């Protein structure tokens, strides 16, 4: 809290001294993310919002057009929540927020990251449901949501993610049945263990999928 206070003082100073923050949308999105997070080890110290883009910030990687492609904050002792602004990172390929203490719901706006290849938010305190909007992440190969407090069922819509190679939701509070179509045919059972899941959905004359 004290840190946020200090930050806002610094920011208001910057606002009065220099005419404007950077107008870069992606930088502003990351700056908004920073204000939601608590960062006791100062991992985000280099995140200077007055720079013209976030591409020289540490833990941020950009492509040659100065679009953010990687956000690497795994194992960084950060807590707080995520917000809808992350959906502005339309060129993001790697969202690495694993093994922190981030809580709250997973914003459905993460489904807007059309270019996402890897989403690793395992090992946090995320709650609520897995957003159905993840079905829009057509390039997704790695989706690791394990070791959180997620509830609800595994959205059937995820079976449309043709490139999904690794899917791990183990160690959550998920219920319902496990999809069997598409990429789900090849995920090992370890990916689903330690939930309240009712096993694979059965396709047959009698539907056993009863939600939760």
């Amino acid at each position, binding site marked *: 809290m004290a840190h946020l206070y200090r930050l806002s003082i610094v920011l208001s100073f910057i606002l009065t001294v220099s005419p*404007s923050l950077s*107008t870069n949308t992606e930088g502003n999105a990351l700056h908004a993310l920073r204000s939601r997070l608590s960062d006791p080890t100062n991992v985000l110290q280099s995140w200077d919002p007055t720079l013209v883009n976030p591409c020289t910030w*540490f833990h941020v990687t950009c492509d040659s057009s100065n679009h953010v492609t990687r956000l*690497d904050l*795994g194992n960084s002792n950060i807590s707080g929540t995520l917000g809808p602004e992350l959906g502005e990172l339309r060129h993001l390929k790697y969202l690495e927020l694993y093994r922190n203490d981030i809580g709250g719901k997973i914003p459905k706006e993460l489904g807007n990251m059309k270019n996402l290849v890897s989403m690793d938010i395992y090992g946090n305190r995320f709650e609520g449901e897995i957003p159905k909007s993840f079905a829009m992440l057509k390039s997704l190969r790695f989706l690791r949501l394990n070791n959180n407090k997620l509830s609800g069922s595994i959205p059937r819509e995820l079976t449309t993610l043709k490139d999904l190679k690794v899917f791990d939701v183990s160690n959550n509070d998920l219920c319902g049945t496990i999809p069997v179509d598409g990429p789900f045919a090849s995920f090992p059972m370890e990916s689903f263990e330690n939930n309240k899941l009712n096993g694979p959905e059965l396709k047959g004359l*009698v539907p056993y999928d009863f939600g939760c």
Partner: protein
Amino acid sequence: MALGSCVSLQLLIEWIVLFLFFSEASFASNTEAEALLKWKDSLGNQSILQSWVAPENSSSRTLSPCLWRGITCDNAGNVTQINLPNVGLTGTLQYLNFSSLTNLLRLDLRENQLTGTIPSSIGVLYKLQYLDLATNLVYGTLPLSLANLTQAYELDFSRNNITGIIDPRLFPDGSAPNKTGLVSLKNFLLQKTRIGGRIPEEIGNCKFLSLLALDESRFYGPIPSSLGNLSELTVLRLSGNLFSGNIPPNIGTLSKLTDLHLLTNQLSGFVPAELGNLSSLTVLHLAENQFTGHLPQQICQGGKLVNFSAAYNNFSGPIPVSLKKCHTLYRVRLEHNQLSGFLDQDFGVYPNLTYIDLSFNKVRGELSPKWGECKNLTALRVAGNLLGGKIPDEVVLLNQLRVIDLSSNQISGELPAQLGKLSNLLVLNLKDNMLSGQVPVGIEGLSSLEDLDLSSNMLSGPIPYQIGECSKLRFLSLGMNSFKGTIPYQIGNLVGLHDLLDLSYNLLSGGIPSQFAKLTSLAQLNLSHNKLSGSIPASLSNMLSLVSVNFSHNNLEGPLPDTSIFQLADPDSYSNNKDLCGEVQGLRRCTTRANEKDGGMKKSKLVIIVASIASALFLSLALAELAYTMEVNEKSDVYSFGVLAFEVLMGKHPGELISYLHSSANQEIHFEDAPDPRLPPPAERKAVDLLSRVITLARSCTRVDPRSRPTMRTVSQLLEMKAAGSE
């Protein structure tokens, strides 16, 4: 009585004059209050303007807005300021009657949600000194009547949807005396708008202009050379537009200029050497243009340069001479040019420097020990140059370093022995150099390291096992070196490895550590082109995140691990080995594992069988709970359960066995008749009994006539009894 009536007439007139005088003062106030109230009404419900009310018992004479929120008056009761920044105002300025508010000196409505256009009537505010409408939703064009604001020293229309151009007539025309035009203008801000067109040369007539900020709008054309006449100019921000042509040399005469931002435009030609005359310069941004020629050599002549960027241009020639003694430097970005020069000779010591990027130029020389005095350095990027020499030991003193990228140079010598002192280092990229010697064991000190790339060098000796202590590693590439000896099993401790583990093209021998199984997040594994022997450990089937493997060009033999990533990999992943076997094209098929070690294996296999049945039981119990109230067609699921039970016991689809069972109606089936050929038969009698009874149950589930199949309820009860009975 003529005299008396004259006196009383005179008194009357005086009284009337006095009356008019006083009432005019409050009358003016009333008009102002009325104008404000009328505006308030037009805005709809604005809770912030709650104080803007006419008290019920007031006459129009006593109505004073001076105590209203955001309103400031002078001693005469005239409204001189309206200050309502960031209060959530919506609506427009359409109904703000400026002609009733001509005493306004200051109008600050920034950071609201005001929409609509800027009314032309705003030009009547002839006393106005300060106008801030920034960060709203205002649209339309700048009214020409703004030229009447001859007292205005600050105008800010930034972060709005304003379109059109800057009309030259807004500025004084240079004739004396200037009748119209923004003669008093000191601060002019049009950042992030949709205004375009050229900057009129007439702007050079705003003699007092100090801050000109036009960033991120749509301006094009040349930078007017008349800007060189603005001797009071301190900040010139033109970044993020479409300006083209050259920088006018007379910009160099602006002795008070501290900030020159020309970033991200289409400027070209040579940068005038005259910029070296800017004795107050602290920030110079030339990056992302099409400049050619040399950088101005005297750029830090004033000794105050803090921030200098010229990246992503076509600059050639030397590093500016004046940078060597430019001790104030904080951030330097010169990457992606063709600059030449010498890293050791052209740079000095910079106690405030946090970030320097000289990558992708033609810089020679070496990293001199002096760089160890840049104590605040967080990023040192000189990739893709012609650096030689060695990495000085003094580098390890830079304990704030987060990123070192010296890749693609010709640096030789050894890695500093004390490298491990860089405990904050996140990225160490020394790829594609000529480094030799061994990786220091002190590498375990790199406790924050996430990316390590030492590939394409001439490093030798063993891979130190201490690398297993770099617990934050995500990416590790040691390929294309001469590493010898065995792969330390401690690499298996790097459970954070996500992106890549590449040890290819070395001289590594011995086996692949089975501890690699712990790398459950690793996506790509490349061990090719080594002398590795033995088999690929079966435990690697635990590496559930793998999408790409390469074991080719080794001396490996034996079966591939039985997960799909191994079994379905490209044949190139395994080529040129000793005797690998598996279902992959190009490899021979593996023979059956007849020589399994006995002893403890039998018991654990038995446990597996029972556990499988228990899982099937659990599944069926769960289903049975629901299914027992269902109709006749649930018997097809009972059939499926029976098939499943057989499949668990036999290790494959029962297929022909079921039809055999149907033909031999009442025969007892013993476990021995339907074994999984891969497993040894159970020795204990209890197990045999249990399994035989499960077979019988499974058989009854697969009867042809659905009505003679048990219900799932019955099945679950029978299985529960059997499970209890076997204890």
